[in-house]
């Protein structure tokens, strides 16, 4: 088996929301994070500011967890929504959390904002979080790591409970017109879990989960993997790259758009790295084994 590598997040990535982006939009914060009209307006403004090929939504990694009962601090103009206090201390409590209602709350507003942007002709990247990122809002990570060691079967159940909610979210997103679904779980990266636990997560969850997610891809929808996930799959022998020739050199985001309908998974670069250029015009599809 190949050695698992890690992808280093860099600070050259998208710089978040700055005052110049929101200037003139007449938005108030944190209200702007809560309604689809303002979410869409903000997303478009960020796209223009970053000179990106697509709009991104949401602006945080808390919508899934909030929809399961997590408590969120909506933040302000500078720092977006994030976790407040934890609501669980055991995996058993996590398993008792309610299913996500995709027709209500902020998660529904996100879907509506995606639809609105699509109707305006924008390409939308919906950022979906993986289980560790969702858990980061619900429970102190030390309980997760302890349970992974002491109660691995129970944690597998937790991962799958969250995984099934994520799949439902992805499927619903397609109905709202989303073409590009990004999947990231950097809170469960190799640098945090170590190779043994990272491998356990791929074996117990990620690979099977992505097999199911693969079934959601079609001529209009593709999935963008965080490179940390790509490398975890490679390191466990679960995936490989397949090259595709693009029409020319272009930004990674533009390459993803060009490849919609032609590939199922992208994952060679962080989608937030909007300036990243595919100078040789080669797009690397991630193919699950």
């Amino acid at each position, binding site marked *: 088996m190949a050695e698992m590598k890690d992808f280093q997040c860099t600070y050259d990535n998208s710089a*978040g929301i700055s005052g110049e982006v929101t200037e003139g939009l007449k938005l108030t914060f944190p209200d702007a994070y809560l309604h689809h009209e303002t979410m869409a307006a903000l997303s478009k403004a960020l796209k223009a500011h970053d000179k990106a090929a697509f709009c991104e939504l949401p602006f945080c990694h808390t919508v899934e967890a909030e929809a399961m009962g997590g408590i969120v601090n909506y933040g302000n103009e500078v720092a977006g929504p994030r976790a407040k206090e934890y609501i669980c201390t055991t995996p058993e409590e996590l398993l008792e959390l309610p299913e996500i209602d995709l027709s209500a709350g902020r998660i529904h507003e996100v879907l509506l904002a995606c639809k609105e942007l699509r109707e305006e002709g924008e390409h939308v990247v919906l950022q979906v979080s993986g289980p560790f990122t969702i858990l980061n809002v619900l429970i102190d990570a*030390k309980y997760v790591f302890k349970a992974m060691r002491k109660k691995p079967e129970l944690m597998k159940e937790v991962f799958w409970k969250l995984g099934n909610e994520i799949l439902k979210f992805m499927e619903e997103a397609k109905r709202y017109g989303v073409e590009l679904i990004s999947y990231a779980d950097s809170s469960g990266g190799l640098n945090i879990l170590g190779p043994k*636990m990272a491998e356990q997560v791929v074996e117990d969850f990620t690979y099977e989960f992505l097999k199911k997610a693969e079934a959601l891809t079609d001529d209009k929808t593709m999935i963008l993997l965080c490179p940390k996930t790509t490398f975890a799959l490679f390191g466990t022998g679960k995936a490989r790259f397949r090259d595709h020739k693009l029409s020319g050199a272009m930004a990674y985001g533009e390459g993803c758009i060009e490849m919609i309908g032609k590939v199922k998974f992208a994952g060679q670069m962080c989608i937030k790295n909007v300036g990243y250029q595919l100078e040789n015009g080669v797009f690397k599809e991630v193919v699950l084994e």
Partner: protein
Amino acid sequence: MSSKEELLQRLSDGVVEMEEDDVAEAAQEYLDAGYPAFDGIMEGLVDGMNRASQLYEEEEYFVTDVLLCSDAMYAGLDILRPYLPEVSNDDKVTGVIGVVEGDTHDIGKNLVKIMLETAGFNMIDLGRDVPLAKFVETAKEENADFVCLSTLMTTTMGGMETVIHLLEEAGIRDRVKVMIGGGPISQKYADKIGADGYSQNAVEAVKLAKKLLDIA
């Protein structure tokens, strides 16, 4: 009955093996046998944590392992600490640590805190999503020698520079060292914002703190 050495070994091994129940049990036996709490902490628990940190440095252990080791260490500390003779923190080098406002990822910060505490620093943990002014207020109130700032997010990195400016405004920048770390942080970024140092991991953070503060 076990000898003092045997119990110290059990405390140390329990920490390395992440067995908090064993550590708590050994700590209680150790106290019941009348041995001094201080030795139990230093030669048992801290010794175990130092071994764990060595394994971390050698990439045998990872973040999750060290966190679980520290849980075991704290389980023993909870039992032994009440039996320590009263000592003031005045002689200890004090650091303020926290995750900057806007970010809630605190695994790395917790690890750095644990390692610095194990190394004998008096650490004041402000937690996660900490208002930037709070670092400065606390550094002033506690007469801190250094401040450790952490973030995993690119969007909140700017807060670190703000803390440095606030320390300058408060007139205490020259006596408070600033250390930064976290996923997207680099030495380049530390240089850019005028931090005194960057460390890539918790073991390096201890070395850096000692270097910056001239501690052997």
